[in-house]
């Protein structure tokens, strides 16, 4: 027995050495205590190479868990990731309130302009109300073009200008087969939907559908390519009620538009979508709208005016003007107190424009920082009626042939 004990104790010692060696192989935990939460988290142990998402969300302030959730102390990948919100995308609309919400963040009051989530949830980008109403009307499921259904059930009893409620769209068994096919094939564009599997459709859902333009990046400088992941990837074939992906790979910007018969003026294929279209148009205003035309209002005249009227302008005299906030978030140009900028008919600042001393205008591309100058219509010799200002009228003279 004595002879057995010696090797046994040696073996025990060896096992202990093994444990020590095994433990020394584990990666050294990297701690981060964000100032916002004051709670240590260890995500950086494995994710040190992830870039900071945006200057507005510094890692040292927000950390990772504030947005992503997850088990902040766990060093085991499965456990650490098990309670993450929305998988890799905490801005998915199913979890956006927990991830991005809060009165000081993105679900605050309208007065503070912090009701982003409320706006996005009710916007046509997420309700898809117009498309659904059109299809249901076309195939006899409803007798008018009013919006009754959206992607999810929504109510807004306080609404002044919008719709009070939308029911969740669900193609019923007695619906026209095309409505059912629409339900199966055509609901991949609204921002709660997972996009089609193709690198050209690559986008996230929720806020990140538009704002995440590269890996772990959040920006308000949104290039047209981001919009194209939904708006330029093909078309719906109403004869088969299927989505037909475009097969070409255009290399010239002017060819990148999918509507083969559409006409475009230079600014439409030179600028980015966000250079003209405002936050309210894209993200909604907090009311439920029936379709695109109820919320989209920017026209050529918004910047150029008409033969009889100059575009609306505003002199920036308040340092707290929202224009400065927007300019701060996407610093192109050099907006200063006292500058005269263009504004829309609803008073939204076109903060990347400026009225020059000679009566012309300048514009900085929000996504490209490119510098442009442009003229007012008034005094140009244009005779187009001030009442007929939709783009089709302007295209008559100013479209570029392709």
């Amino acid at each position: 027995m004595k002879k057995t004990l010696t090797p046994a104790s040696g073996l025990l010692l060896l096992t202990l050495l093994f444990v020590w060696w095994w433990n020394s192989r584990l990666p050294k935990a990297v701690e981060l205590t964000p100032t916002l939460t004051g709670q240590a988290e260890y995500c950086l142990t494995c994710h040190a190479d992830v870039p900071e998402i945006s200057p507005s969300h510094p890692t040292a302030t927000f950390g990772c868990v504030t947005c992503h959730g997850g088990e902040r102390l766990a060093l085991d990948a499965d456990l650490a990731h098990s309670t993450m919100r929305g998988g890799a995308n905490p801005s998915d609309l199913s979890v956006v309130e927990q991830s991005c919400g809060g009165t000081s963040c993105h679900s605050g009051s309208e007065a503070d302009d912090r009701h982003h989530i409320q706006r996005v949830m009710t916007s046509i980008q997420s309700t898809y109300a117009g498309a659904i109403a059109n299809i249901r009307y076309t195939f006899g499921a409803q007798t008018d073009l009013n919006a009754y259904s959206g992607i999810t059930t929504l109510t807004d009893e306080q609404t002044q200008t919008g719709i009070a409620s939308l029911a969740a769209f669900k193609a019923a068994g007695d619906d026209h087969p095309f409505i059912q096919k629409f339900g199966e094939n055509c609901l991949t564009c609204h921002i709660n939907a997972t996009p089609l599997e193709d690198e050209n459709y690559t986008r996230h859902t929720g806020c990140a559908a538009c704002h995440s333009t590269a890996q772990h990046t959040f920006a308000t400088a949104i290039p047209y390519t981001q919009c194209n992941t939904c708006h330029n990837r093909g078309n719906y074939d109403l004869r088969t009620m299927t989505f037909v992906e475009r097969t070409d790979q255009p290399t010239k910007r002017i060819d990148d538009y999918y509507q083969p018969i559409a006409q475009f003026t230079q600014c439409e294929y030179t600028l980015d979508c966000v250079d003209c279209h405002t936050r309210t148009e894209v993200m909604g205003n907090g009311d439920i709208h029936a379709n695109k035309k109820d919320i989209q209002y920017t026209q050529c005249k918004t910047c150029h005016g008409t033969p009889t009227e100059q575009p609306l302008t505003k002199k920036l005299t308040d340092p707290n003007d929202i224009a400065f906030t927007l300019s701060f978030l996407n610093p192109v140009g050099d907006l200063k107190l006292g500058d005269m900028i263009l504004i829309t008919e609803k008073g939204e600042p076109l903060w990347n424009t400026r009225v020059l001393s000679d009566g012309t205008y300048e514009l900085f591309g929000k996504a490209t920082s490119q510098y442009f100058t442009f003229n007012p219509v008034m005094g140009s010799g244009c005779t187009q009626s001030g009442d007929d200002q939709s783009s089709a009228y302007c295209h008559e003279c100013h479209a570029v042939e392709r």
Partner: protein
Amino acid sequence: MRPSFFHHLHPPTIPAAQARWRHTLAAGGIAIFLMLILGVTGILEMFYYVPNPEEAALSVQAITYHVPFGGFIRNLHYWAAQLLLIVSAIHLLRVVFTAAYGQPRQFNYLLGLGLFVLAILLDFTGYILRWDMDICWPLTTGTNLLKTIPLIGDFLFRITVGGGEACSTALLRFYTWHIFGLTIIVFILGFWHAFRVRRDGGIAVPPPQLRVVSARISRNELVRREALAIFVVGIILILMASLLPAPIAPAMTGKPGITEEARAPWFFLWVQQMLKWGDPFIFGVLIPLGVLILLVLIPYIFPKPADSDIGRWFPKSNRFAQIVVGGIGLIVITLTLLSFVP
């Protein structure tokens, strides 16, 4: 050489035939060793564990991932606890299968059975202390089973869990039961059990005139064998604790809810399987209690084993007790395996 205190805890000599590994299976000694491991690792965990619903699961994560060797200590505690249940069951089976429970050891058999039940309760309370998502179902179901007991159910629920819902009070109650209430009873019964082994004449053997082998081994040899068992079990435990992490799940947010996979800890899977069949009081309380009562009555209702059969494997004279206990074991194992069938 005068015996040391440690040697002195052992009888001067014991019968060689009954001291063999294949007779004792070293189960009783290993159980004591595992309890010592549990005590030491448990105390170390207490330095970091926070028995408060908001912080409990996080403190378990902190122990597991950030305290130096914390994960190893926690894994040791976990695996020692699981092995203790297995070793205790083996010890019980050995005692029945070698007819070692008869007069004068009936009372010590009861003490041992009490320790086995306490080990199960300690394992369950320890499991609940994780306070993570995986403990929701066992906590809710286990404590609600108490309520199904007529007349005293609510009272039992209140003293074990606390008033109202199984939430904040439950954690503190389970903590206190785990580290103090149950542990102190285990200490008392454990010492009593060991004392009674000596008082009842040491390991069960036939009377001197009926012994086939009269050889005995010294306490020095016995201690050496114990040391070897400790080394072997120690190595196994250390390897398990290094390579097999103890279960852990995301922290609970809010009150316990039954949203995660509803699975009891492995030693209660047989009860969970029966709960699928109907009335929770019958299948969750009466039948397990019936099994325990049957085990308690073994030394009293079955024929006394023949003197010459004491300390022999599978003797004829207590065949009936062997069949009953073996049958219970097989049924428990079968029910446990059945619980994995979807």
